[in-house]
């Protein structure tokens, strides 16, 4: 296996900038997940690594070797596409072995390697079948086996699970992680699904509009987002954002009064925004906090999401009433739609962002 590095990569299509000075190092044996919304440039980054796109500027290094000008074949990478890209006229075995065949690996050796790769992903019993006879999950395994069989320097996976149903996706997620641990493979994994990113990545890189927002372990991305975009993109439901206003009694985020964190005064002269994740809003029927009206109740099995409007009718909510927020609550609380609850903002769980630049100013206030 090998390291994979993007060094100052810029990719432009005409006037459109798909990647803007991307610097990203994937360590040897690391599973790096690149996540971002549609059009963020994540697939472009993957295709640049594969050699399917020429860069406008910058360099790609695989195993320390500059491969920027090399064609895909010389990069020794393997790719798994979202659509699996299986050849419909070839059997599963021939699909897996096509890379070996075009590289003229002796047939006997190729057959052994195909069988070994198929066994590794659990499709050894289907080598004689054709792709159209396989389910989505089985096709995905074949595509993985095809990537494995050449023992490449790095794996490039482009949303490999997004065509699978929810249950199979969870299962394949675990299998991919197991495979990664077993092989110690360098993997660049692109997804738009932040749950996939957080659960699978050794590290996660968040892209937006072609620019890298933050790179770090999943925990760091979730708990210490570099900016409002990362905070809002990672986590489901998304983080609640409340404009911060100056009131007579100090600062308020929506109806919540704010106290500056110990030892750090409020950043002066900036427009501010407060972010709080749904699980950190404390909701009670008649406890402390500001009143809110329940608009929608979403049951998600072991937890419930409440869509609330802060400042219930008939209550004196003060400034910031009418603000919509989402709160995640446990099994115990199941208020009716239209009923009134109380919402509290506990200390130590909110983020303060610069409303203009989006930069995170205070972590967990």
């Amino acid at each position: 296996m090998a390291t994979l590095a993007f060094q100052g990569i810029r990719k432009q299509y005409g006037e459109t900038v798909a990647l803007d000075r991307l610097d990203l190092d994937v360590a040897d044996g690391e599973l790096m997940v690149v996540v971002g919304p549609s059009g963020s440039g994540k697939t472009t980054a993957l295709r640049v690594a594969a050699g399917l796109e020429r860069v406008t500027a910058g360099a790609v290094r695989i195993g320390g070797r500059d491969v920027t000008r090399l064609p895909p074949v010389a990069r020794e990478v393997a790719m798994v596409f979202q659509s699996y890209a299986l050849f419909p006229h070839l059997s599963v075995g021939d699909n897996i072995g096509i890379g070996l065949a075009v590289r003229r690996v002796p047939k006997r050796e190729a057959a052994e390697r195909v069988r070994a790769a198929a066994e590794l992903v659990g499709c050894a019993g289907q080598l004689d079948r054709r792709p159209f006879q396989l389910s989505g999950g089985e096709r995905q395994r074949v595509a993985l086996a095809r990537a494995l069989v050449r023992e490449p320097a790095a794996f490039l996976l482009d949303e490999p699970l997004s065509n699978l149903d929810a249950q199979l996706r969870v299962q394949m997620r675990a299998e991919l992680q197991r495979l990664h641990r077993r092989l110690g493979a360098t993997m660049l994994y692109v997804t738009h699904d932040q749950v996939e990113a957080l659960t699978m990545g050794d590290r996660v890189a968040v892209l937006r509009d072609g620019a890298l927002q933050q790179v770090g372990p999943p925990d760091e991305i979730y708990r210490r987002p570099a900016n409002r975009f990362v905070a809002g993109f990672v986590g489901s439901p998304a983080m609640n954002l409340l404009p911060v206003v100056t009131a007579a009694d100090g600062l308020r985020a929506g109806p919540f009064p704010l106290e500056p964190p110990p030892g750090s005064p409020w950043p002066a002269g900036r427009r501010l925004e407060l972010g709080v994740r749904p699980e950190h809003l404390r909701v009670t029927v008649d406890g402390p906090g500001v009143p809110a009206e329940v608009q929608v109740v979403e049951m998600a099995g072991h937890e419930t999401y409440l869509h609330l409007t802060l400042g219930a009718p008939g209550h004196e909510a003060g400034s910031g009433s009418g603000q919509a927020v989402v709160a995640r609550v446990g099994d115990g609380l199941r208020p009716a739609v239209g009923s009134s609850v109380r919402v509290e903002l506990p200390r130590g769980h909110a983020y303060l962002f610069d409303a203009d630049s989006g930069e995170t100013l205070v972590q967990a206030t």
Partner: protein
Amino acid sequence: MIRDRERRDLAVMLAPYLVGLAALVVVPGAVTFALSLFDYDLIRPATFAGLDNFRELARDAVFRTSLRNSLHFVLFAVPVRLAGAVTLALLLHRRFRGVGAYRTAAYLPTVVPDVAYALLWLWLFNPLYGPLNLTLGALGLPQPPWFTGLGATQAAVIIMSVFQLGEGFLVALATRQEIPGELYELISVEGAGPWATFRRITLPLMAPTLALLAARDVIFSFQATFVPALIVTGGGPPPYATTYLPLFIYTNGFQYLRYGYAAAATVCMILVTAYIVLLQYRMVRRWRESFVV
């Protein structure tokens, strides 16, 4: 109620096609089959001849030459036309500046009326002032005797047919564009060069359509020689060098007024065509089953 009405609508919509099919294909086909068993010259009443016409065909040297010429034509023209259609489709499937003009140019000879097309080639092939031989002469290359040499005349008829590949080109182009780009990207990452990509991906994935095109072209080619043979080469020269089955049938039917004999030759042509298409179908099926890496 609704089903009845749907059925009635369907019948109304199908009627023009079915009437045309009956009037232009089924009835003439049946008459041809029947006529092949008679002697008929438009003047005297038809007399039943049984299989005499077919027996005479088997002994007729001109018929055997025509059949051989037609088979030669199919053998050379079909692969060349197919290869031409695929090559053009592969060259012109990408988007680039001016591609529309090139595609139109590739299709254009197909829409020129056959007689005009044949007259055009009569000029192009003219050994004295035709631009083809003038160009070849200017380049210091040999100038084939297009309308006098045996091989050259037959080659001329094949060359004429090669440029009328517009429909095959369009079908091949559509088929190539249907192949997902990701398959090509994947095979390039896997390490295949252009030839391996063509052999392992493009050709097998286009194969079903190409088989269909080939079958269609065989049927077409048996008939396509008529206008060039009639107008450009006159069936020779040397004698009978370019007398193909359609010209043989035409001559016997409309010049010698031997309608029964011409009908028997037509039946033979249909049977030979059907046999070749069947043979082709079997070969392609076996070929497709043998796809391995």
